[in-house]
């Protein structure tokens, strides 16, 4: 250990990661510990916190809005993650086939939607999804389908939000595209010579070779979905009137957390909500990693089976 530290490059490595470590301790770990402590208190930001033991956690278990928010968030996650990754993979495959000068142009275009600020996307989709005059329903009408009231029917609001979420595929697409570029061409060519069909090549060569990247985007997208906030907040909670008339059909977990903290001044309760979310995300990620380890093939590892 000592020997390793004494090597100049190792020391430099630590110097380079130092800013991140300081940031983590100061801006992440500190507040996290503070919020853990606060989650056992009744705290309104103004007067000093009062210790209440596990009260906040007990209240959560009986709070119908928490249950509603969890349901909404899970529903969204279960729809958003596979859909977004499926679509992004499709886009990445298309990008991968484009060669020459046009390639750069298309890569830029495909990434462009991700440059739109989330707040702007939220507002934009409120217009697009509007059940009376929105373009989504105008498009559906071309096929004789009468579209639902995406923004005002509680049964369809989540579906509308999933539709909106498919706007921001840029990062996922780029990650998968980079992985696709790394798939050795020889493997595909060899399989082609052996008479493997396109689907067979995709299934048996491409997919396993990009398994690591796929696994990464599944985890990252799942976490982001569970933490969904800004776009939905813009659409349905941004001003008092919107908030008053949307009910809890679009109440996501983090939005409820925010309301508890800053609208109702229940900072202790909000901290408890945050910690439960943290634990849930941790558990889901551990499960994903366990399952992933069985499914994902990493080139670097030695296969001992």
């Amino acid at each position, binding site marked *: 250990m000592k020997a390793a530290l004494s090597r100049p490059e190792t020391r430099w490595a630590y110097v380079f990661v130092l800013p991140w470590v300081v940031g983590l301790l100061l801006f992440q770990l500190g507040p996290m510990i503070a919020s853990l402590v606060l989650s056992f208190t009744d705290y*309104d*930001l*103004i*007067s000093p916190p009062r210790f209440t033991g596990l009260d906040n956690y007990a209240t959560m278990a009986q709070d119908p809005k928490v249950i509603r928010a969890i349901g909404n968030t899970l529903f969204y996650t279960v729809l958003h993650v596979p859909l977004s990754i499926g679509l992004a993979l499709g886009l990445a495959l298309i990008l991968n086939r484009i060669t020459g000068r046009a390639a750069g142009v298309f890569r830029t275009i495909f990434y462009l939607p991700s440059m739109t600020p989330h707040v702007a996307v939220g507002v934009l989709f*409120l217009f697009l999804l*509007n*059940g*009376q*005059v*929105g373009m989504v329903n105008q498009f559906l009408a071309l096929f004789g389908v*009468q579209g639902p*009231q995406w*923004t*005002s*029917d*509680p049964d369809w609001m989540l579906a509308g939000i999933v539709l909106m979420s498919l706007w921001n595929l840029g990062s996922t697409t780029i990650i998968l595209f980079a992985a696709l570029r790394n798939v050795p061409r020889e493997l595909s060519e060899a399989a082609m010579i052996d008479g493997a069909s396109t689907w067979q090549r995709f299934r048996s060569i491409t997919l396993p070779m990009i398994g690591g990247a796929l696994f990464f985007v599944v985890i990252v997208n799942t976490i982001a979905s569970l933490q969904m906030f800004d776009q939905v907040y813009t659409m349905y909670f941004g001003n*008092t*009137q919107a*908030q*008053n*008339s*949307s*009910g*809890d*059909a679009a109440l996501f977990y983090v939005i409820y957390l*925010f*309301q508890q*903290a*800053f*609208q*109702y*001044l229940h900072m202790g309760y909000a901290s408890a909500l945050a910690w439960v979310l943290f634990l849930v995300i941790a558990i889901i990620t551990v499960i994903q990693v366990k399952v992933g380890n069985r499914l994902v093939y990493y080139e670097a590892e030695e296969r001992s089976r």
Partner: protein
Amino acid sequence: MAAAAMLAGSLAACGGVGANKGPAEGSSGSGAASLTTMGFGLPDEIATVRVDAFKKAYPKVNVTINQGQFNEQAFLSAVASGNPPDVVYLGRDRIGGYAARGAIQPLDSCVSGQSIATGDFYPAAQKQVRFADKWYAMPEFYNSIVLLVNNKAARDAGVDPASIDTSDWDGLAQLAKKMTRIKDGKIERFGFYPKLPEFLPLWAKANGADLLSEDGRTVNLDDPKVGEALEYATGLLESQGGWKKLKAFTDTFDYFGEGNPFAKDQIGAMLTEQFVISAMAGVTPDADITVVPFKDRQGKPVNMVGGNAWVIPKGARNPDAACSWIKTMTAADTWVAAARARADKRAKEGKVNIGTYTGNAKADEVIFSEVVKPSGKKAYDDAVKTIRAVQEAGFVVPQSAAAAEFNTAWQDAGTNVLQGRQKAAQALAEADAKAQKAIDEAQP
């Protein structure tokens, strides 16, 4: 120098206001003070004229206006970190919750120290800025709710717009249906927009019920009269195409532009605050509209009033300058000057002006007798009379220690019923229990 003397004098009088830590610049005698505001913008002459009046009266106070709407997260973080602005501009409906938790200071010594003429404010506005028998804010505007009628829609339905009487609920329901236009499943005109859940307290009042007791401690949402009002309004919406479609339709409205729903014949009649009419006067002077009072079931006008207010947060560095600011911004003279600037500006632009509706009754007396002159546009001139007439019928939902939770409770109940997810009685009973619990727990 005079300003410095005034500030110093006010400090002596307001000794009790807040923790005056830090270098209380305003009182040190050097004369230089700083004042930071939050939640207030300078969008028009009504704002700028009054700010100028303050700067003129207190030339040595260095005013920093952080423009932008009130943001509760920014506000609370600032208070919690001990670095709040000196004076904050926010909706009056939230004052109770902040007062109960000590996020804002009582203003009683500010009022007495600087002799603020609180008696000039409308009684309903006074009531809305008081909590637990103390002043916690001073009121700004005084927004009244009236019924705005699209004459074309009324005539299409064979009704004289001026004769529309909201005390007759059956008649109103029939009229709503007649004024509605639906084509191929799409709403073209919303017959009668009752503005729910937002105006539920008004509908309840019209039916003889209050959502909250006078002292702000007993929730009354489970009163059958509240349920009846909500059922009725929900039925109105059902007969006009259903809430889901109507909501999507109203989401497309631009109330303040030339393409407002009255100019576009998209609404038959709606309950609205007078500022919508004021904006319409500026952009569509020839709009074919009539403004009538909203009446309760006994036929008496009923009007839920609201508006913004000024508060001083806990830990404000310069509460004395803040108090002077509040006094200046809400004083009758300042309001009259601002209203005059508005009238001049609209006259210069050749636009109709229906006046400035302030929380200061004394200012309004002058504004509507000396500043606002008939424009020659009968619809708007009559509107001014109607709005002025319903001002004294103004009521407010009392402040409570859990104002935010209380508001969310009844609004959620209203939305659930409108969306068809719950029956009124059940939704309101649940909301009642929830709001009562929140208020009990929040009592200081």
